[in-house]
């Protein structure tokens, strides 16, 4: 059962966004984050939101899936809204007991909420539309230039993909050990925090022992299959840029340019009309 879970939050669908090279999506993620902080004012946020909306529609990922990611940061958002709202100095528009709300506070709070929502949704596009193995391939290629500085890019990517493969196996193992220890009278549910933490020891030790044994086996299996690092290694599905990737890059840079222009334009405007 537990082996069926998909890792990360990949949503399977056949769309243009899914087919894009992972490097393009990586670039999108970075550029989108930058654009949210470069952009200022209603127009910029409207542009960012509609750009994201178009991508979501193209990706065929249901909006409910997107919103699910927002749930986890909801509390964080509420807390920062409250702080910004009540603690910002400025022109007072509401005052009751020790609470005061200022015009500037409202502006900052609203801006922050919009930014956070767009940020979470924008960054989840990549993980929702890219399989973990394509993602690691993309990261390996995108950061390949670091090899000049002796960063073991291939080794890190290989470790990531092995970790991804073994997470479900280790989860299953945890369940198995837990049941075995419970059958011997271990109690994982009752007691305070310290008692619970102590109860984890008989779980963690066998897990570590078995993880090391697995690592040893895996190393042998990899060596037996001629593994000798990333040099001269070929790929079954090498990453290759296609026409759609070039178009996507163009759109992406056009978007960034628009955001920057908008920023320059609006700040000029503010200078002219203070």
């Amino acid at each position, binding site marked *: 059962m537990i082996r069926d879970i998909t890792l990360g939050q990949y949503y399977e669908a056949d769309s243009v966004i899914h087919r894009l090279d992972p490097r393009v999506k990586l670039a999108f993620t970075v550029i989108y984050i930058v654009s949210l902080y470069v952009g200022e004012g209603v127009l910029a946020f409207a542009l960012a939101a509609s750009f994201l909306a178009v991508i979501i529609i193209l990706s065929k990922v249901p909006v409910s899936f997107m919103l699910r990611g927002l749930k986890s940061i909801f509390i964080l958002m509420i807390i920062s809204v409250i702080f910004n709202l009540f603690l910002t100095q400025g022109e007072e528009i509401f005052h009751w007991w020790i609470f005061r709300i200022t015009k500037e506070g409202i502006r900052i709070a609203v801006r922050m909420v919009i930014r956070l929502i767009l940020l979470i949704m924008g960054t989840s596009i990549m993980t929702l539309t890219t399989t973990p193995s394509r993602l690691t391939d993309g990261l390996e290629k995108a950061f390949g230039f670091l090899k000049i500085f002796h960063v073991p890019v291939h080794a890190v990517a290989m470790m990531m993909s092995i970790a991804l493969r073994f997470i479900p*196996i280790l989860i299953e193992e945890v369940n198995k050990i837990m049941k075995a220890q419970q059958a011997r009278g271990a109690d994982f549910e009752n007691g305070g925090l310290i008692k619970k933490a102590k109860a984890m020891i008989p779980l963690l030790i066998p897990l570590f022992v078995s993880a090391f044994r697995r690592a040893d*086996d*895996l190393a042998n299996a990899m060596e037996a*299959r001629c593994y000798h690092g990333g040099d001269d290694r070929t790929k*079954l*599905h090498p990453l290759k840029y296609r026409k759609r990737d070039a178009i996507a890059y163009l759109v992406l840079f056009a978007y960034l340019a628009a955001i920057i222009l908008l920023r320059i334009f609006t700040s000029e405007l503010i200078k002219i009309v203070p």
Partner: protein
Amino acid sequence: MNIIEILNLVHEYRELDEEGNEAEALRAVDGVSLTVEEGEFIAILGHNGSGKSTLAKHVNALLTPTEGTVYLSGMNVAEHKPIWEVRREAGMIFQNPDNQIIGTSVEEDVAFGPENMGIPTEELLKRVEVSLEKAGMAAYRLHSPNKLSGGQKQRVAIAGMLAMRPKVILMDEPTAMLDPVGRKEVLETMHELNRQEGITVVFITHYMEEVVDADRIVVMKDGKLVMNGAPREVFSRLEELEECHLTAPEVTRLAAELKKAGLDLPDGVLSVDELVNALCRLK
């Protein structure tokens, strides 16, 4: 032609004490000589700790000998460089199916070996397809290995070996963690590959039922080779097998008991059919 030639092999596991001095040396393999012919299906039988896995790991250079030499296709395994030229000649299947699958999908895993060998992409695709076909796993090409049964996982591992086009496949107790169905699947696949592709198979196990169809059986005990011969010959030496903590299949033991009781039966009966035939001919 001999594809594997093992000459006087000794392997010692050294245990170091806290100061880093040698405390104890355990002889896992103790002066074994063995030759395997190309195209042979040879089984290595032995109880736990008899040194059978250690012996096999010398053939693809996962271990280096303490003494003695191993030749594979004429290469001196311990000294040949680069080492992966040795390893692509002799693939190895391990006991735990989960711990030898590296790819996140079946096809990616099968491609792992040839990817390391630097095979170009087009050739890779072809090899993956052909290997999966031969191992009978073509229908699962895009599946996640986590969802397969143990027997299927071992067949994926076999396909992964085939994609490297080895001459020898070493199987280190590949059936130990499988259910009876999975065991049969793996065994049948290997026999088919041996017959049709001419791949030399070295099959390590402690289940005697699995080796009745082998061309030759080698029995190991405490790091030494104690028996070497055709299944019938080995299976007729029941008492010696008992000393090695190996139990012959029930039919073989039954036939031996019947013979002791005075019936005129051949030695080393391998299958139920054989015993039935022999019994019917008695009158």
